[in-house]
């Protein structure tokens, strides 16, 4: 890609300043214009790419240059009087996850370009080594005789005398569940540093290169460090023993202690003795992870912080590309809310930097709000699973097919990972940042996430249905007040990631007469956190169960941004069936199917949904797999909270063997969990009323919106969607449902459902 960029802020409002960071490759200038994206899907079987320019926002010949990104996390302590210049020592626990990857730094006061200072690291042969250089070019190296083991805690002591040049190294196993290891040690005499390194920062998990530009740091360590103790002397075996037996705070006469067992959401690490500077975590290493003392007695870091005083560093962590702003637009005050992009053009190439413009707080221009899944868009950026996960081809049932932007992302790992990926050491990715190019928000690519959601914005525009755009982030920050201005809220195709504040806001909205159209599948699935101070960051944990690409490690189910239990909403608090009537049952990505109407679609309460719709089968067409029911599908389940008065209007059928039940639907696996054979592998189209005259309509299918534009928008999916939207926008309250008025299968009690298994009443031929 010759040109690529990201917005300074993912979500803007009319009248805001919208800045853009752009990097070019071999191009010195580009043009930029603001465009509104109505449909981002450029495939021939879709509605076609549609954009309109905002004439007042154009830039000509914006200077372009290559902007670099520093990837990899570390911790930095700025030079200061609290760092000893004479004798200095360190004791800390180390958990190396890729000890064979090559030279890595555990801690350093080192500048590579000058070979100056000291550095403790892991060498090419997995040996713990110390390097001392006085800037002359010669480097003294001391290594332990045994390699450091992978994924085993070890306590390491390291020290050197600035005056005599004496260097000591010690290592002892700190694996509480292991068999132990004798202490190994080495000592030698290196150059006398004196105060030569006094101006250098102290770094952990990486070392300085001495460059003014990227890369400023190198030697990134993969693994965990536990609360380092700094000494104004060389460490002894007594210090190792004290650290292991009683913790870092019991090491005698510390010069500094940077304790990781507090302030879990912060990138600042306080220094406990008060005599040395605080430390700064760079590029978002993982917090709220187990340390050496974790023994399973607590699963929550806030409950027993001493078991969680570790930070997991990765060579592919990224918080912020930190590119310089290239240009900005002053958004018109009367700009309609919607999906927008800075369209960047150079000869032979263009790139849309997509961002959202939402209504200002306390304002609305329409009664209908499209709720853009901004948290979900972040969760998917920047996914590499088709490159890195060996099972993706099996899951898709098709040889992996990459577009040029995929190839670019694969080769530009500095743009960071998604919460679907694993780090280079195999551990799952907890965080995603909006401060980088976001490939999940690209248009003209796959019809997924934002690009698929433009099928809905396109349909709304094509049908002349005025709407505002609001974002997950606004609902999270402002709660009910953001939703309550609207008669109808329409979701995207895949509103998968929900914070607690979002969930509570939607619950209150529906409890007070709001109307929700859930036009997607696999929604309301993962409990997610937005960073309390940095809203461009999200976090999640893949705990317990769910359709997931990695598992949270034992003891790491709680999110360090908020302290909340992570994982599925179904397992952590409330199942989506309670909110929208349906919840995820299966995924599959070859064919989408159709719905068959049920008698409930003729119920007087819901007759408006199918007004003007002929026939029993609906949605047997579409641009996502050829049907309206597919990709990821949801079903009703009274056990999980589908209201007893809900009406299942239609149910999909005929799914393929590529569909498989999600793990939480089948606690043990067996041969009949695929779409052809599973008893309950279908999407339910469902309607129910909420208190105060409100209502919910759910489609339970990601591919629904891919059918809206079929046959010039004149089709039964479009008709059903419009019927619901117009009725939901009508202020006339929905009457309270009659007792016992729901679909029969929803009215059973928990005990009755147990009997269901015996009676086999769902096994209709």
């Amino acid at each position, binding site marked *: 890609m010759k040109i690529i960029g990201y917005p300074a802020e993912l979500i803007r409002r009319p009248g805001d300043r919208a800045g853009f960071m752009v990097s070019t490759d071999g191009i010195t200038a580009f043009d930029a214009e603001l465009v509104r994206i109505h449909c981002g899907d450029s495939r021939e079987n879709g509605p076609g790419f549609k954009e309109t320019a905002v004439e007042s926002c154009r830039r000509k010949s914006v200077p372009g240059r290559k902007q670099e990104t520093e990837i990899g996390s570390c911790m930095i302590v700025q030079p200061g009087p609290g760092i000893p210049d004479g004798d200095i020592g360190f004791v800390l626990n180390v958990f190396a996850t890729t000890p064979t990857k090559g030279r890595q730094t555990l801690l350093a006061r080192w500048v590579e370009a000058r070979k100056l200072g000291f550095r403790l690291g892991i060498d090419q042969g997995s040996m713990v080594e110390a390097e001392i250089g006085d800037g002359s070019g010669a480097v003294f190296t001391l290594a332990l005789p045994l390699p450091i083991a992978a994924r085993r805690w070890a306590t390491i002591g390291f020290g050197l005398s600035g005056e005599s040049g004496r260097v000591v190294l010690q290592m002892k196993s700190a694996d509480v569940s292991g068999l132990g290891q004798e202490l190994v040690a080495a000592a030698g005499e290196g150059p006398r540093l004196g105060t030569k390194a006094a101006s250098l920062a102290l770094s952990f998990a990486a070392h300085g290169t001495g460059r003014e530009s990227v890369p400023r740091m190198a030697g990134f360590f993969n693994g965990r460090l536990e609360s380092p103790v700094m000494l104004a002397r060389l460490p002894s075996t007594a210090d190792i023993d004290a650290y292991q037996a009683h913790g870092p705070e019991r090491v005698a006469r510390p010069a500094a202690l940077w304790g990781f067992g507090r302030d879990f959401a912060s990138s600042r690490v306080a220094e406990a003795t008060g005599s040395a500077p605080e430390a700064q975590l760079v590029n978002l290493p993982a917090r709220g992870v187990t340390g050496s003392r974790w023994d399973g007695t607590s699963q929550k870091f806030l409950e027993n912080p001493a078991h969680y005083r570790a930070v997991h560093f990765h060579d592919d962590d990224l918080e912020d590309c930190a590119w310089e702003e290239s240009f900005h637009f002053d958004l018109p005050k009367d700009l309609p809310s919607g999906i927008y992009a800075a369209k960047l053009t150079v000869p032979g190439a263009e790139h849309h930097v997509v961002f959202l413009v939402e209504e200002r707080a306390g304002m609305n221009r329409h009664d209908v709000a499209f709720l853009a899944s901004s948290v979900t868009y972040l969760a998917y950026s920047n996914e590499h699973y088709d*490159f890195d996960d060996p099972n993706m081809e099996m899951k898709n049932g098709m*040889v992996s097919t990459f577009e040029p932007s995929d*190839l670019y992302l694969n080769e530009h790992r500095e743009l960071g990972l998604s919460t679907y990926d694993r780090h280079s050491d195999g551990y799952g990715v907890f965080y995603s940042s909006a401060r980088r190019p976001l490939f999940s928000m690209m248009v003209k690519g796959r019809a997924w996430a934002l690009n698929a959601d433009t099928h809905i914005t396109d349909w709304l525009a094509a049908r002349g249905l005025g709407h505002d755009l609001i974002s997950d982030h606004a609902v999270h920050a402002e709660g009910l007040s953001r939703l309550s201005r609207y008669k109808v809220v329409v979701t995207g195709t895949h509103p998968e990631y929900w914070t607690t504040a979002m969930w509570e806001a939607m619950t209150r909205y529906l409890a007070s007469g709001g109307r929700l159209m859930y036009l997607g599948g696999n929604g309301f699935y993962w409990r997610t956190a937005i960073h309390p101070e940095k809203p461009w960051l999200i976090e999640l944990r893949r705990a317990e169960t769910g359709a997931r690409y990695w598992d949270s490690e034992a003891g790491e189910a709680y999110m360090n941004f908020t302290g909340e239990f992570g994982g599925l909403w179904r397992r952590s608090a409330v199942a989506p069936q309670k909110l929208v009537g349906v919840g995820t049952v299966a995924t599959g990505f070859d064919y989408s199917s159709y719905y068959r109407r049920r008698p409930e679609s003729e119920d007087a309460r819901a007759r408006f949904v199918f007004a003007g719709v002929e026939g029993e089968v609906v949605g047997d067409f579409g641009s996502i797999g050829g049907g309206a029911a597919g990709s990821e599908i949801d079903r009703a389940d009274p056990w999980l909270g589908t209201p007893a008065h809900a009406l299942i209007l239609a149910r999909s059928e005929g799914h393929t063997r*590529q569909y498989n039940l999600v793990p939480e639907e089948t606690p043990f696996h067996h041969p009949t969990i695929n779409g052809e054979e599973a008893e309950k592998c279908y999407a339910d189209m469902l309607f129910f009323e909420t208190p105060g005259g409100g209502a919910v309509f759910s489609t339970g299918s990601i591919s629904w919106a891919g059918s809206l534009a079929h046959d010039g928008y004149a089709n039964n999916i479009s008709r059903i969607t419009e019927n619901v939207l117009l009725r939901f926008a009508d202020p006339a309250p929905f009457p309270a449902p009659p007792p016992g008025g729901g679909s029969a299968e929803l009215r059973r009690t928990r005990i009755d459902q147990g009997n269901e298994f015996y009676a086999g009443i769902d096994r209709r031929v």
Partner: protein
Amino acid sequence: MYQLTPDDAKLLPEFLQRERKDFSLELRCVLNRLRLVPIAGREVIVAVEPNKTYRLARMGAHRGQPVGYIDDRLFTDHKRAEYEILKMRWRRLTGLPLAAE
């Protein structure tokens, strides 16, 4: 793991002859086995012009390494490109010839 046998070769042409949803269980077993190959060096498809033109390619040896093209052929039929890759994997895994299409 399913073990490919020489007789399985005659199943592969079904890949082109039927819609995916109609594949026989026997063919599905073969396809699943052909998909169980390491990522390093795995054959993939590059949509050089998305949704229109395809080339056969191969994954790099390590994470982040570029995908390299296998040959110069251009395909306008994605399924045909996929079939060529399945044949390559068949030969690589079994060393056996394929039945005539």
